[in-house]
């Protein structure tokens, strides 16, 4: 009979085989699970990014609106003129800034009771280190020192070239950091992990230090302090957020005014100057080019090195002077001199239309095929053919806007008097110069070859691997380091490892959304990446929990956006429901949503998270929309359509407020609000009755003094983002749960 050992072996073999198969099965299942998780993460990421970029487009539209206003709005009465003046004017002349210099801060007294850090100039390394420590302990720097530091920073920046140069001969290691966006924790973490700046440890900060996060000013103070202390080793590049126009929308202006109620305005004023004095790029060993956004197929480093960067105040809109030397190629806005009588807007272009070369009023909506222009400005058509037609329609549109806004009809037109003032011409960059700067601050790399306008952001371009290659060859460079885009791992190589994106704001969209990273370069110029995530909570979460949490946040934002477009969605659904059954198929749902929101998201994948009330593949769209609204309506007396409109234009509203509130007092008058809103809504084709807005405005004016407190207005209607309850790290469901608090998706059961 077969020996016991052979049956034993037989069994052993069978068992081993079973174990092998069992293990393989478990692994197979697990890998699929992880893939689905990865897919969810990818979706969530797309949601955040597309909403973020849509917001940037809004910004561009808003500024097109204001330019349009300035270009075509001829105030015919005292009131109108004053109103416009108040909105748009602020004197800025070169002589003023010199005089303001010392008087700005010397007169400010620092009380004895002040326990924060005190600075004396010239700064010593210890001061800078002490500043880091003080901010870590949540202290606040007194306005006097802020202004003093900014003045010194400005004095220093003025002497710097547009393109800084660093060599690994002097500093053995160079650390390059990307966007910080006001997240002080990340900066402190980097210094903690990598070491403080020193002559042996050079740093390059690649722009976007401010906006979004809550400690932008503190970050600036630290960065400027180290720049003054180690001028050879500590370098800053300008980012697209180092721009007072962008700051109005993305939170930096608000932060400064909140933290420095008395002196905030002065601080903002000098920052405006400081920002445009920041260098545009850094070159390491003449081989590695570091700049914030990217490049274009026309990027000209020699031109960039030569231009006067101080003239480029904002990359969103810019006064440009008439380019005499380049006639036919000029595709940009037509540049005119300012008329002597008109106030010069401090942030908007000076371009006025003369009879011979008018501007197309709605050109900013014109789609751009291919690379005609990288900037969001109107395209001037062939003047002679269209001049009369266009001018007529401009007048008509202008008149319509004015009537809607309640201004009396124009009785006489002011003729703009061109004044050929040499001095003014010197203050403005050329169209080409401005475009070069916009390109390097706003562009993004893409996988395909070529170069096309960056319509998502509204500025700069998308540049392909061939563009990178050409540039690197032209200037004998090895690779490019840039930032500007958030990446899940904090960094990303592309274009055959010739372009490195480095992003240093961890948890940018939400706790757990992404890592931050910085890159170190030694003499061999081999990039060495270090990643981090400056939030202890995330370390305790598993990937599953992290993804769930971020996902919940993204879905919240998405549901809000859906709500904000309820009316349009209803119309779209009805188109798919010709028989008026009240139902649409789920694929129709997806198609409808995309055609309204234009976010380019995989709606079919997201559907289970957004729609949980369907039967047999059909959705009752009206009740779905109502459910969306229920989450938002806290004020029953406000019509949901109004709320929806406000929600949709929330950022625009806030930005408008801040622009109107030119003295940053936090208050605007009812009348100003009404007038501006009317103009804005008529221009943007927003359908809202005048009465509605009046009622709304009046109801917010709680103390009935004719003024609206901006923050009250925004908070009253929950138009500012509410910080969701942090701290429940263990909120992700392990078992079925029914509550719909922060992190469970509604579809889960």
């Amino acid at each position: 009979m077969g020996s016991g050992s052979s049956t034993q072996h037989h069994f052993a073999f069978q068992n081993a085989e079973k174990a092998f198969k069992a293990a393989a099965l478990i692994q197979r299942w697990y890998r699929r699970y992880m893939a689905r998780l990865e897919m969810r993460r990818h979706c969530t990421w797309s949601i955040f990014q597309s909403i973020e970029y849509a917001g940037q487009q809004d910004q561009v539209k808003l500024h097109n609106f204001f330019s349009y206003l300035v270009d075509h709005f001829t105030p015919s009465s005292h009131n109108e003129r004053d109103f416009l003046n108040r909105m748009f004017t602020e004197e800025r002349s070169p002589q003023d800034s010199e005089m303001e210099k010392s008087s700005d801060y010397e007169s400010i007294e620092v009380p004895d009771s002040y326990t924060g850090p005190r600075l004396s100039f010239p700064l010593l390394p210890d001061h800078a280190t002490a500043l880091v420590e003080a901010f870590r302990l949540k202290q606040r720097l007194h306005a006097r020192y802020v202004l003093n530091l900014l003045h010194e920073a400005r004095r220093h920046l003025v002497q710097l070239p547009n393109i800084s140069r660093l060599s690994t001969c002097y500093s053995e290691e160079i650390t390059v950091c990307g966007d910080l966006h006001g997240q002080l924790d990340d900066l402190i973490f980097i210094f903690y992990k990598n070491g403080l700046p020193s002559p042996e440890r050079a740093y390059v900060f690649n722009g976007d230090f401010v906006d979004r996060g809550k400690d932008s000013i503190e970050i600036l103070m630290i960065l400027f302090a180290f720049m003054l202390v180690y001028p050879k080793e500590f370098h800053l590049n300008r980012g697209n957020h180092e721009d007072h126009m962008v700051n109005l929308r993305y939170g930096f202006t608000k932060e400064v005014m909140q933290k420095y109620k008395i002196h905030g305005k002065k601080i903002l004023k000098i920052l405006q100057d400081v920002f445009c004095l920041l260098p545009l790029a850094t070159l390491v060993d003449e081989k590695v080019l570091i700049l914030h956004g990217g490049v274009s197929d026309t990027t000209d480093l020699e031109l960039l090195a030569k231009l006067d960067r101080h003239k480029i105040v904002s990359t969103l809109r810019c006064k440009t002077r008439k380019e005499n030397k380049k006639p036919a190629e000029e595709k940009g806005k037509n540049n005119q001199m300012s008329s002597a009588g008109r106030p010069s807007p401090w942030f908007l272009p000076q371009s006025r239309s003369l009879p011979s070369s008018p501007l197309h009023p709605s050109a900013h909506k014109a789609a751009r095929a291919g690379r005609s222009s990288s900037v969001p400005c109107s395209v001037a058509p062939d003047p002679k053919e269209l001049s009369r037609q266009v001018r007529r329609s401009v007048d008509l549109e202008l008149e319509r806007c004015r009537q809607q806004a309640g201004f009396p009809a124009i009785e006489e037109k002011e003729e703009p008097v061109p004044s050929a003032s040499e001095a003014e011409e010197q203050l403005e960059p050329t169209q080409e110069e401005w475009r070069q700067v916009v390109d390097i601050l706003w562009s993004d790399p893409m996988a395909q070859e070529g170069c096309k306008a960056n319509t998502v952001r509204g500025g700069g371009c998308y540049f392909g691997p061939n563009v990178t290659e050409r540039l690197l060859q032209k200037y004998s460079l090895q690779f490019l380091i840039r930032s500007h885009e958030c990446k899940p791992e904090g960094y990303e190589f592309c274009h055959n490892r010739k372009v490195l994106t480095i992003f240093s704001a961890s948890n940018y969209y939400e706790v757990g959304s992404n890592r931050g990273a910085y890159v170190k370069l030694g003499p061999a110029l081999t990039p060495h990446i270090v990643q981090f995530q400056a939030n202890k909570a995330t370390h305790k979460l598993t990937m599953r929990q992290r993804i769930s949490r971020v996902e919940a946040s993204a879905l919240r934002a998405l549901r809000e956006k859906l709500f904000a477009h309820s009316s349009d969605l209803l119309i779209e659904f009805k188109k798919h429901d010709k028989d008026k059954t009240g139902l649409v198929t789920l694929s129709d749902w997806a198609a409808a949503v995309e055609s309204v929101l234009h976010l380019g998201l995989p709606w079919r994948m997201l559907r289970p998270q957004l729609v949980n009330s369907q039967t047999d593949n059909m959705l009752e769209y009206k009740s779905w929309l109502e459910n969306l609204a229920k989450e938002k309506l806290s004020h029953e007396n406000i019509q949901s359509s109004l709320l929806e409109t406000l929600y949709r234009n929330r950022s625009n509203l806030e930005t408008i407020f801040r622009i109107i509130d030119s003295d940053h007092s936090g208050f605007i008058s009812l009348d100003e609000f009404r007038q501006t809103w009317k103009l804005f809504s008529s221009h943007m084709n927003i359908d809202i009755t005048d009465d509605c807005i009046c009622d709304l405005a009046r109801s917010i004016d709680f103390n009935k003094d004719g003024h609206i407190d901006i923050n009250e207005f925004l908070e009253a209607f929950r138009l500012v983002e509410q910080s969701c309850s942090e701290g429940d790290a263990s909120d992700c469901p392990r078992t079925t749960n029914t509550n719909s608090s922060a992190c469970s998706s509604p579809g889960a059961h």
Partner: protein
Amino acid sequence: MMPYSLKGSRSRPQREIGTIIRSLGCCPSEGELHDLIAEVEEEEPTGYIRYEKFLPVMTEVLLERRYRPIPEDILLRAFEVLDPAKRGFLSKEELIKYMTEEGEPFSQEEMEEMLSAAIDPESNTIHYKDYIAMMVIDEN
């Protein structure tokens, strides 16, 4: 049909194909995945897969219902095979041993990630029935 937002690019890197296929409902083994990729990749491996090549192959896979996902009860039995004493759990060491030495072994990263979610830190064991139950909820 494609749930994966292609972002204007008509090709994806190879390593993402596994994610895409699995998220479409298929549950291939690593070996099966490699075979599939071999079917769709370019003659000269560029590291990218083109959509035009991928689509017909993937459609066939879906229509044939190849690589069906694993039902819960089968999964449970697999764990039970590894736990012949029927304790209801596996020790951390046992799990590591099986997952990294048997079948199509996990990478260190995969192992760590699985452990972080599956292991009960106090007893250092994985109670597989609960684990499966928890993971399955997420799927829906």
